[in-house]
């Protein structure tokens, strides 16, 4: 098992997780053997394009999707082996924020009830205590509880709904939050607000985050380390600054190159990406990126590259990493 984190005893330890599901009579290999660790207090960014399996991985970590094989260790306990009441109890320590903030809220319930729900499920019987906690988190995310608590979700904008979702995820004082594309559906000017808010909440509540997104700049803004995923496997993992300054895996390089830069002097380079990502139903043999990689050769189709340390703290799964 690869020790990818610098610190010992990571809070989250994902060990060779495999998640597959059936589509008709075919199997989608969503996650094919991913191992990663997140240290306490760290933000690990998980980046990749659509279909790479990052959302599935996020949900599998929380056991919202059962893995076919592999383990997820949270604070020393094996989540994959848990069921029923034990798992439900564990859920209070790990939370999830979704991409579509408006769809994440029950359209027929009031905000106050929605944010209080985790407390009720966790068995907090005292109504006054619940109200106090709800007010505390709503204020923390920048919403006035007296105005907001009695309203319905459709009365709020996307950005405000996402704040409410963040409040809901904080009300039980969790230790770990998986953020699944939390700002992708929001406008540019609101995105920055929510990212700042997440950073603030992380510091204030002492959180550890797994931040999933497809936008590299967004991921870099909030992450200590970044993992790049492609078609169910990890391509590269490393500290944010280092990874983006000197990517080792060709796919990371491709992603970086493809980002539109808001600077008219930077002429967009004719992209070297060849073709489209293959389907996760029939992924290529060996290295899954080889069909689009300008550096691919025989070895790449024969042998699956393993994550190896290219630079201190930076790991890439490639037979021909970038210099």
């Amino acid at each position, binding site marked *: 098992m690869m020790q990818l984190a610098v610190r010992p005893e990571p809070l989250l330890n994902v060990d060779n997780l495999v998640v597959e599901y059936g589509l008709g009579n075919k199997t989608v290999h969503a996650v094919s053997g991913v191992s990663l660790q997140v240290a306490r207090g760290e933000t690990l960014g998980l980046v990749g*394009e*659509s279909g790479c399996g990052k959302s599935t991985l996020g949900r599998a970590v929380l056991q919202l999707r059962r893995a076919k094989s592999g383990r997820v260790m949270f604070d020393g306990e094996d989540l994959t082996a848990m069921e029923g009441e034990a798992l439900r109890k564990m859920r209070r320590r790990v939370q999830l924020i979704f991409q579509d903030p408006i769809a994440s809220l029950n359209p027929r319930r009031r905000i106050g009830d929605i944010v209080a729900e985790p407390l009720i499920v966790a068995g907090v019987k005292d109504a006054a205590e619940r109200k106090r906690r709800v007010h505390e988190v709503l204020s923390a995310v920048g919403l006035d509880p007296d105005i907001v608590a009695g309203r319905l979700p459709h009365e709020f*904008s996307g*950005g*405000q709904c996402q704040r409410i979702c963040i409040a809901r995820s904080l009300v039980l004082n969790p230790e770990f939050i998986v953020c699944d594309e939390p700002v992708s559906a929001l*406008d*540019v*000017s*609101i*995105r*920055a*607000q929510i*990212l*700042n808010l997440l*950073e603030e909440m992380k510091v204030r509540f002492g959180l550890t985050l797994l931040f999933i997104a*497809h*936008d*590299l*700049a*967004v991921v*870099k*803004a*909030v*992450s*200590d380390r970044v993992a790049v995923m492609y078609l169910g496997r990890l391509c590269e993992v490393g500290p*944010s*600054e280092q990874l*983006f300054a000197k990517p080792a895996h060709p796919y990371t390089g*491709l*992603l*970086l*190159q*493809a*980002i*539109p*830069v*808001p*600077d*008219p*002097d*930077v*002429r*967009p380079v*004719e*992209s070297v*990406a060849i*073709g*489209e*990502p293959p389907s996760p139903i029939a992924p290529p043999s060996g290295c899954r990126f080889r069909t689009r990689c300008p550096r691919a050769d025989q070895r790449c189709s024969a042998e699956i590259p393993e994550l190896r340390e290219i630079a201190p703290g930076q790991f890439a799964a490639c037979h021909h990493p970038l210099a």
Partner: protein
Amino acid sequence: MSAPLLTIEDVAVELPTPRGNLRAVDHVDLSLAAGRTLGIVGESGCGKTMLSRAVLQLLPKKAKLTGRVMFDGEDLVRLNAERLRRLRGRDLAVVFQDPMTSLNPVLTIGTQLMETIQEHLELDAPAARKRSIELLAAVGIPAPEQRLAQYPHQCSGGMRQRIAIAIALSCEPKLLIADEPTTALDVTIQAQILDLLAREQRRRHMAMIIITHDLGVVAGRADEVAVMYAGRVVERAPTPALFKRMHMPYTEALLAAIPKLETAPHTPLPAISGRPPDPTRPLRGCSFAPRCRYAAGRCHEAKPELKSAEVPGHLYACFHPIQMAEGIGA
């Protein structure tokens, strides 16, 4: 430079809603010459989509449109339905954001492509088919003959968008409006699609309008950029001038709010507080004033009109423009 192909003159669009009258587009003036690209940038609710619909005369029935849209010498607003129908698809083409819904899911790709060609170019079926295959190849779709018989759901998002572009380009349009063409696509596919649009535009000497919320998309690919906020154009300039010397605080704030790859992690982003105004409740003063850090008394009283800056062709609507000497970013 030739006379403008498209001129949008004082266009305003109003929509009645249960909450009141919605000013979607508030007196917009724009022009575009043949072969040039105009980028319209703004966030959701700024009116950019309504504006494109106004140009195409595809507004909802209840909408009220005032102003003129001069295209190739004709006023599209006053044109009769038959003439409009012949212009659309032929001289005026559109590519929408979501390729899943812009292609008919129950018709094959070949049918959709050929029906446009046959309708506007009056070719017979074999000739239309040949042209369809050429078009699919031109937009970079492998094995085009096989694709003709396929349905949209059998193709990926990027491929569907290429097909939508192929349909749009099939009749050699003079103007192509691309409404958020890459927003729903992955970043590597986005780059490919934008390259494709740029290439085709150069080849056909076509005018193009790219509507997007992403300043990065227009930075390298548009000749001129217009920034919209709350239904109005708040700044308009040739692209290099816009980025080098922004005048309108909203443009500056928009650019600053985008996370950049160069910034170190955990740096707080300069966010714009608040939200865009409710379009059913237009403000008396500048729409951006409640969120603007430079706002002063006059900004809340009156709406600034578009004024010229030093660089010709650079217009902005602000009482307190910022002077940015050099560079980009906050």
